[in-house]
């Protein structure tokens, strides 16, 4: 087996260096029975083969060695040049064959001739300690047919060399060419609503909370920050919703590019009900236990699947940065109580 593509259900998709962080997370979930949208990874090996066969590797090395890292204009220019290289250099035949076969198998499994899929970057550098690379690399939603898939696969690869990705990598002491870029191809979720779940409070670092942000349609609005999502806080251990704050969801993404305005009535309403929030939280708790650390999870509520069975996870990765608890203690009442508590404790000892 060539290992140019691997399905989430396959054992070897648990090799993070082969499939990258995102696909690794999806594989783990798939294999633990947690619902994710079905798909496969185009591996880092395929990426290497592509760079080698097309000669892009040598050209990239040269270009990156020469560029002035401090100049935004220079970086922009270099990245545009690189992007054009990826646009023009087709996949080597054996890689294209593997991707076509992977896509065909997925289409067949789901009974569709040209299944709509998401094509998403899954780099090995993502989620490395201290650097989340959150949103640095590209994701394309609603691709149909192997041509579309193949073209956007290359765009994902190219996104490792955008000006901002390059700066981010360098700032974190990572050589851009050391980033191993795998790509996830998975069924596009027909999302009624979607969003992000943290199994820790991102505000206070409280590990007993789960915080969910969600909006109508695909999760792009939540991730991209162009809507104010609804916000839910769940008490992880007792298992109930502590807080629900209605956001301002003025638009929803129907596909990667296409948005639609949300009418006032739906805008003022929460997009998830308590049962959905709790079902999500249970999955979040399970994932956190699996990984032994707080997780950052992207999810969608599928429009077509039956209630109770309609949650689809898109991504799961460790939360990399948390507020320091020490920064949170400042109010006078808290200080007064703490002072008293410590005098009681020392008396009791």
């Amino acid at each position, binding site marked *: 087996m060539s290992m140019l593509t691997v399905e989430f259900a396959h054992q070897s998709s648990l090799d993070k260096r082969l499939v990258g962080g995102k696909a690794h997370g999806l594989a783990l979930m798939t294999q633990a029975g947690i619902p994710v949208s079905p798909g496969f990874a185009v591996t880092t090996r395929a990426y290497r083969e592509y760079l080698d066969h097309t000669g892009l590797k040598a050209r990239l090395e040269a270009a990156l060695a020469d560029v002035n890292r401090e100049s935004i204009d220079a970086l922009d220019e270099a990245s545009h040049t690189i992007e054009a290289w990826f646009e023009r250099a087709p996949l080597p035949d054996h890689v294209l064959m593997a991707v076509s076969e992977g896509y065909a198998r997925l289409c067949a499994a789901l009974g569709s001739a040209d299944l709509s899929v998401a094509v998403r970057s899954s780099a090995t550098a993502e989620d490395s300690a201290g650097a989340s690379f959150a949103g640095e690399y590209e994701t394309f939603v609603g691709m149909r047919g192997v041509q579309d898939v193949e073209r956007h696969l290359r765009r994902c690869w190219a996104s490792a060399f955008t000006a901002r990705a390059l700066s981010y990598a360098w700032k974190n002491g990572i050589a851009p060419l050391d980033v191993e870029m795998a790509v996830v191809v998975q069924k596009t979720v027909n999302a009624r609503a979607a969003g992000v779940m943290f199994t820790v409070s991102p505000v206070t670092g*409280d590990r*007993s909370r789960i915080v969910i942000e969600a909006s109508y349609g695909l999760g792009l609005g939540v991730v991209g920050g162009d809507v104010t999502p609804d916000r839910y806080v769940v008490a992880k251990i007792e298992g109930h919703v*502590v807080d629900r704050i209605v956001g301002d969801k003025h638009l929803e993404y129907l596909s990667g590019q296409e948005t639609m305005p949300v009418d006032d009535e739906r805008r003022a309403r929460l997009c998830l009900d308590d049962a959905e929030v709790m079902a999500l939280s249970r999955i979040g708790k399970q994932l956190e236990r699996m990984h032994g650390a707080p997780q950052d999870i992207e999810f969608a509520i599928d429009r077509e699947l039956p209630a109770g069975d309609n949650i689809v996870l898109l991504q799961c990765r460790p939360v990399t940065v948390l507020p320091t608890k020490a920064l949170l203690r400042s109010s006078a009442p808290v200080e007064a109580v703490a002072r008293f508590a410590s005098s009681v404790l020392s008396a009791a000892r």
Partner: protein
Amino acid sequence: MIPQTDRFAYFHEARAPEGAEGWERMYPYFLTSQPEGRASEDSRFWFADSMHWSRAVHPFDSIGAEAVYYGCGINGARSIVLPAALGLDVRMVNGYVYICPMPVTDPAEIEKRLALFQERAGFYYKNWDELYARWKEKMTVLVQRMKALKFEPLPEVEPMEVVTEGQGRSVSWELVENYHRLVNDFFLAWQYHFEMLGLGYGAYLVFFDLCKRAFPEIQDQTIARMVAGVEGIAFRPDDELRRLAKLGVELAVDEALRTKAGAAEILAEVQARPDGARWLEEFNAVREPWFNYFAEYGFLHDQETWSQNLDIPLQGIARYIELLRDGQDIDRPVARLHESRDEIAAEYRALLAPEETAQFDEALQLSRNVFPYIEEHNIYVEHWTHSVFWEKVRDLAGVFVKAGFFREESDLYHLNRFELDQALFDLVESWAIGVPARGVQHWGAEIAARRKIMAALRSETPAPAYGIPPKEVTDPFAIMNYGVTTERVQEWLSQSGGGATRRLQGIPASPGVAEGVVRVVRHENELSQLQPGEILVAAITAPSWASAFSVVSGVVTDIGGMMSHAAIVCREYGMPAVVSTGFATARLQNGQRVRIDGYKGTVVLVEAS
């Protein structure tokens, strides 16, 4: 919400309700605001203690305000020597009790007090179980001693023994002496009450603080759940009702117990059944001591115990019978409650960093150790001491009426305890001399006037606070016990403008969300009006209202903190509760529909009907 003002009214700005002018003269001078203390009073922050006194207080009943804050001060300021706090100062305004925590601010003084505190508190914590056992013994002796006090009508002439035994001492002197003994023991009970309470709350605070630091968003009620007991005498009165309900079904007197009638009729119905006598025997055996239990806290003479008003326990029994007939299990799931308490604690512990777990264990152990005291002390003091205290005061009132001094027993409560001491001496001296008591004239008109004042005072709910609030409330006990936090004070300030309210903010005391029709209950007698699914709105709920919780769908109170027993019982009943709203009884009306959120502490008007 942005407050429109940065202070509450000063005492001298408070207007007496119409018809209550001159109310100040009814209370001891030191309980009311005086002109010479104005500057100091104005500069401080006073909040209503409607947790203990939910209605305007009769002159005699103000003895409670004295005893409570004397005992509290003794313990905190002088005995255990809290480092940064003295006692709570106390005033009566328009018949309601207001308190003000007195902080120690001088760092050198705090340092000095800290050393004393470490030594004294340390002794209690190290010997807690033994000292608590001794405490229960002391309280039991005290209650027995109060029970033994006699207040009997004055005879025509002294009994023969006074002569034959050469006593040379009048039986009338017993009245004077026993009144003093009764008052002494009442004050003593309140010193005992605080002997361990501050330390108990302090120990709980250690755990509370640790949880808040480790889990900044954790809810107060979750912390309480990890510590709260599920057994012990605090739960006994209600457990006895459940047992009597089951026995009623077993002995086939349940139909009789479901009769919609007064206690006398119901008990007669039961008596008429074949096994009725057996059930009544059990019922009567339970009354002492478990029905010596106030529907409220027994700070006011007109609050009744279950024994005084058998309607209350019988209604509770009938509700449990209904549940039994619906096929429900009414036993408290003690084992499961224990288990879930430990499970929750273990799960929170598992989220901690390894170096934090030892502290967590230590703090949890310490608060669980003291918690039985926090939960049980009310039974000894508020329920048992108060019930015997008021019983004896009623006996004394009977003596006054028999002697023609008072027209009716309730006249007595219109004199404060010092005035009553004078009246009592007037009574025995005039009896001894053989002349009419001067008090009949002296007090007759005044009591009539005071009755009008009391009615006027009781027609209004208290303002939540007076004076200038601190920027931040830092007193641990104000926060923990009374639910008075910086946020609450801001809410009060923003709402003190008056007008219609669509939303009230309180403290979430018991989780859950409920929507229902408002039933404002100002007196325990009104509990019987509750309809299934209604939201109970009260100044404060007492734990003994528990059986009503099987009917209502939620509870809202004006005042109260997380640590009140009522809050604990609400949680156990799975009843959403929002406490410390400040205004619920004043702003909500019967028939309105509200949605209460026991997670967020909100009460929202859904629609008015």
